[in-house]
């Protein structure tokens, strides 16, 4: 891709000449209900005082890509500005009947399913725009799913650095070692975004991640 290389070169020259601060576009990817929005909310709440989106036990609560611009994060003596990009959960199947078990009526369930399919398409389209990505997985679930492999495979193919957040470590049955064994090439941060557990370790891993970000 010589065009991309040239474009990237001139972008870097522009930013260095005018001393413009580039935001790190940080994407949150993963299967539905892994806790992407909960983690994005935790980070946004910690550093801006505001959340990015709503969370729910019903899968596919996030059905559109949502952003929070200019999130300044400080850790020890390091500082970085992020554009937080929370994406809908990626799935290979969406059945409106699954939503009926959560108390939605047929009309609501069909609407949610339709929006969720669009959300998956949108999330995949956004992959190319990320500087770095947090893949958020539920550490109480089997990590050897094709969706996880497909997401990480696509990030590797695009040379986007990846940090795996093994979320929900407070749940019974959570097993970070299983996630580490499934993805041995990646840094895995075990956290509970909801309880705020191990966030220091997470921020340390996040700053290590952005050292590897695309275009640096």
């Amino acid at each position, binding site marked *: 891709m010589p065009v991309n290389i040239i474009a990237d070169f001139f972008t870097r020259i522009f930013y260095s000449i005018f001393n413009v601060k580039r935001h790190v576009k940080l994407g949150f990817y993963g299967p539905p209900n892994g806790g992407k929005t909960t983690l994005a909310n935790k980070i946004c709440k910690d550093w801006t005082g505001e959340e990015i989106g709503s969370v729910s036990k019903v899968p596919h609560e996030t059905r559109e890509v949502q952003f929070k611009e200019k999130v300044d994060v400080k850790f020890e003596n390091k500082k970085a500005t992020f554009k937080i990009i929370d994406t809908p959960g990626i799935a*290979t*199947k969406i059945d*409106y009947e699954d939503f009926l078990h959560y108390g939605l009526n047929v009309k609501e369930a069909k609407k949610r399913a339709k929006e969720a*399919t669009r959300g*998956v398409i949108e999330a995949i389209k956004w992959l190319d725009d990320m500087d770095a990505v947090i893949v958020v997985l539920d550490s109480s679930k*089997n990590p050897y799913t094709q969706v996880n492999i*497909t997401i990480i495979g696509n990030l590797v*193919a695009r040379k986007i650095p990846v940090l795996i957040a093994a979320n929900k470590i407070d749940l019974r049955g959570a097993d970070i070692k299983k996630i580490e064994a499934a993805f041995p090439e990646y840094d895995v941060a075990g956290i509970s975004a909801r309880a705020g557990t191990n966030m220091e370790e997470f921020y340390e891993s996040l700053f290590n991640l952005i050292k590897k970000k695309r275009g640096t």
Partner: protein
Amino acid sequence: MKNNKSVTLQFIPYAEIAYLTSFQRVKKLIDLAMENRVVLIQGRLAPEEEADLIQETMKYIGKSKSSRFKGIELATFMPQTKNLSMMQTIRENFAKSLLGERDVLTIIGPATVVREIKKDPTKIQLLLRK
């Protein structure tokens, strides 16, 4: 498939998809899933093709009122090659560069037939809907 008591696995040899374009490959797999077939492919899709397959799948869900298509189940299965010697690894990579990843198997089935594909490094389980 007239009922869910039996399932036929359609085998697609590597040669049948090797010379298709990415678009044709994805289209072929979607068409087979829409026909309610479970497919066993010799080889695997590139990560970008897997993403395309998911995007295309999403476009077909709930597309027509008569369609019961709810998506797909997808899994790739790779033999363990961790303990290969350096020479075996070089030979393996050389063979892959010439022949493609023929030792990898991919299973794709419609979600209305295949409930779940369970996978760990050494085994794969196809759980079907009743």
